[in-house]
């Protein structure tokens, strides 16, 4: 604790000396100067999901983005997937349960028999079996894990997707940087953004359906749409003569993003996908949503979150797993195959996780409860190595042997793998410096390519 305070205080002093604790003095720079490249990449431009000044991105920064266009698919299995029935089986042990372990494409590595498809392509991802986190409740744990469980500095941290939207901005595709495919309702979801502000929230596709008003209104033909937008731009352009251009650019930018999205209505049309693909991913919700995630990533979305619910198997764990895990296994394996086939895994990080694992001990309802002490996360792609297994749990699967990794370590690893530069590893919240990931954690070196 003491050392971290020192660190912060020192930093504070430096910031103050540089005069950075306050907004730049309005008298000393023009608005153009205030829009530094870093701000473009890091703040305003990133807001494409729900807002932002990113029209200014084109084309100066677009080139750089293209060269290094890392993307993320984040599969969230809400409630907690059992590591013992998936990534870290312990067959024939006290808590092992009835399922067997099967060999995988990685020599010597076994995973649960409920994941035969993933087993065949396991070399396209890595597993960290030594995850050890702090919270065993859903209500607090979900938020803590999704935010990387940073030190409490009195602010609400962003979820990973909002953080990536802020730190990396949209890709050159012009699509919103943070999309979320989920069951139930969709729309512009801002809660994930925390202190970063609503514009870093997610554009959510409820049950894979487009948000309100994405369909071109029936009264308007495509030609009319082009013509009216051109006229709108012409009026805006005339208005901005002799005035600040920022606002015009910002306004045009959101219309451009809207237009890009409207032109990609095909993303929401499942009939555009081959029957074969639909079978490979499965026709259940998680399958369809993972397939959609692949298509969103192909279309150029920076970060796609896919949500699945009902993994909280306190009762009848083994039947639940037998029903649920295959729903994850098929589409996850298909996703890895497809991304690999398209050569995209060098740039796309795929993560699958929950808020915690499940207890080795089987309760009286034949269920497993919450277990943050020792569980597993799958991750690989972009700058994160594939085909590795990091860490191990003890024989019974109850605790981690050797080095434990908290979610803070995972956040550091992901940000590093995505190429987030050292200087971007700190948010500036109105002068309050906030590390983007827990200050006491560090990346898992063995996983960094």
């Amino acid at each position: 604790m003491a050392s971290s305070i020192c660190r912060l205080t020192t930093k504070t002093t430096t910031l103050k000396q540089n005069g950075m604790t306050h907004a730049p003095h309005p008298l000393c720079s023009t608005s153009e100067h205030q829009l530094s490249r870093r701000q473009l990449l890091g703040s305003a431009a990133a807001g494409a999901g729900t807002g932002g000044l990113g029209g200014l991105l084109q084309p100066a920064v677009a080139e750089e983005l293209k060269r290094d266009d890392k993307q993320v698919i984040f599969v969230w299995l809400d409630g907690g997937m059992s590591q013992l029935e998936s990534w870290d089986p312990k067959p024939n042990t006290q808590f092992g349960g009835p399922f067997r372990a099967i060999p995988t494409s990685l020599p010597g590595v076994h995973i649960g028999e409920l994941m035969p498809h993933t087993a065949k392509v396991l070399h396209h991802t890595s597993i960290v079996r030594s995850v050890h986190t702090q919270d065993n409740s859903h209500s607090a744990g979900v938020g803590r894990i999704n935010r990387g469980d940073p030190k409490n500095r009195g602010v609400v941290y962003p979820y990973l997707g909002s953080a990536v939207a802020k730190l990396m901005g949209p890709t050159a595709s012009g699509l919103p940087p943070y999309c979320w495919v989920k069951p139930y309702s969709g729309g512009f979801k801002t809660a994930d953004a925390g202190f970063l502000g609503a514009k870093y929230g997610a554009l959510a596709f409820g049950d894979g359906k487009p948000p309100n008003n994405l369909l071109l209104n029936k009264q308007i033909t495509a030609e009319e749409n082009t013509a009216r937008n051109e006229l709108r731009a012409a009026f805006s352009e005339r208005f901005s003569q002799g005035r600040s251009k920022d606002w015009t650019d910002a306004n045009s930018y959101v219309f451009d993003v809207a237009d890009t999205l409207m032109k990609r209505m095909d993303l929401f049309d499942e009939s555009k996908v081959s029957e074969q693909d639909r079978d490979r991913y499965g026709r259940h919700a998680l399958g369809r949503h993972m397939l959609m995630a692949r298509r969103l990533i192909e279309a150029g979305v920076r970060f796609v979150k896919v949500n699945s619910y009902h993994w909280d198997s306190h009762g009848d764990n083994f039947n639940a797993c037998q029903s649920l895990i295959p729903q994850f296994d098929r589409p996850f394996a298909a996703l890895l195959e497809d991304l690999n086939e398209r050569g995209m895994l060098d740039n796309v990080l795929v993560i699958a996780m929950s808020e915690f694992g499940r207890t080795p001990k089987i309760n009286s309802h034949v269920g497993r409860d919450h277990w943050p002490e020792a569980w597993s996360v799958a991750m690989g792609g972009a700058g994160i190595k594939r085909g590795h297994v990091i860490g191990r749990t003890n024989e019974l699967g109850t605790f981690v042997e050797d080095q434990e990794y908290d979610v803070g370590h995972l956040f550091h690893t992901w940000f590093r793998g995505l190429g987030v530069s050292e200087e971007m590893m700190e948010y500036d919240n109105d002068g309050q410096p906030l590390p983007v990931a827990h200050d006491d954690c560090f990346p898992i070196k063995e996983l960094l390519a």
Partner: protein
Amino acid sequence: MNEPHKRDRLRLAVKRRQECDVVLSCEQSLPRRNLVVRALLCNLFIVLLLAARVSHAADPVHQQIDRLIEAKITGPVAPRSPDAEFIRRVTLDLAGRIPTADETRSFLQDDSKDKREALIERLLSGPEYATAMAGLFNVMLMERRGENADWDRFLKTSFAANQPWNELVRQILLPSADNEESRGSAWFYKRRLEKSGQQPTDYAGLTRDVGRLFLGVDLQCAECHDHLMIDDYKQQEFQGLFSVYKNVSIRNEKFPAINEKSITEKLEFISVFGSEHQVTGPRIPFGAEFEIPPPPEEQPKKKPDPNAPPAFSSLKLIAANLPSPENSLFCRNSANRIWFALMGQGLVEPLDQFHSDNQATHPEVLNLLATEFAAHEFDLKWLLRQIILSETYQRSSRTSEETIEGTYARARLRRLTADQHLASLLVATGNLQRLLPSESEPSEQYTELQKEFLSAFAAEPKEPALSYAPAVKQALFQLNESQFLNLLTPQENNLTERISKLQPRDVIDECFLSIFSRLPTVSERELAIDQIPDNEASRAARIQRLVWAMLTSIEFAVNH
């Protein structure tokens, strides 16, 4: 300004300073501890001296503003706004909507020299003034946490009567359930005391908001420790106010109401960075701590009435002392927020970061406004009038040469608030009468449109609506929402119907006057005239395209 009043204030300031010096000399801690109190008193002193000085200068305050602002401008300055720009700007600010085509036309044709002054007076005494102010302050104070009819009535009647601003704040800080007119003021507390889901009551959030909104200080970090970067923001400032709000709860009534419990002992707190126990009684941040009286003798054990006023009401002390002319921070924050609303830029920014290391860009202007606002008994119309009469306010937003940002060398673009935007949309498209024949009885269609419009355009709950952040959902709303596009369909003498029979040239003038509140330039007229074909069949559709493009262009979305 009357002399005895001023002398009293001066005396009071000196007295308070002496009191604080006594406190300081007793303190064993770092001398920094009470720096803020000193700084504030110092400021108050300067403010008062300044007030004394300027009161000799006979110049009206708006001219003093101009002098102080112009002294700091280097480089080019925008000319005075053209009449059209002015009427749009001031009507948006004081009536909450753009002017109608007729209003603009007759203002442009008016030759009288004092027509701007006359317009300002007309708007200040007009029927829409109270609604516009209620809209502005509702968003500022509630930050889209939800609407309440009693609160709305409280704001509207207060602004209609031009109740002094500090009295209005006083009623918010100490709501009275017995006064039917004003009891809606409790909504400020009540909404914030409501629990969200399984979260406990957010007393800390309420404490923070009182500091932010009424004193311009965001003490959030000081909940757990002295602020790490802002020396002024000590944990005791937060905890002192927190100790008050910890004892406030929701009273179960059909209207917004609260109860308060007596504070019987000081609040104990520890910094997360230390282990030393500290205590504080109730206090207004940066003010003196209030004495907690000894609890009354043991009463006979009767079940107390939960709605009875507490034996010791710290809310009463807060309400009496926070929004007062002696509280320089209150005066300056009030002036700064009203200046921000009219100018699009705070003299102190961020608005809730008043502290000694964050000086105002124009300290003399801030002091002038704060002192004079207080001296004029917090007459809001007076303050609005002075700012609006200034050349600084009336400057054009357009210049031929680049001006230096932040110097007020030209008018800053301000995003229309969601409420202004919707009202202006109905005025521009001539649908106001049809959809909102009277404010008390909105049509179903209006209510539905308003809901969708606000969900696309208003800031998220709890997000201050301060900066321009255009959003994709706004673009999608304007591109595809039927309720929006239907405003453009010719019906019941709305804009598109009214102009459908006019000559192309007149169509264009009428569109510009109705939507942009000005006449087109030559090049704009050429651009627009190409849009209107002679061919009757496609004419209606082309007019709608023109109207749509103007409504969705950036010019319509900003106050410029």
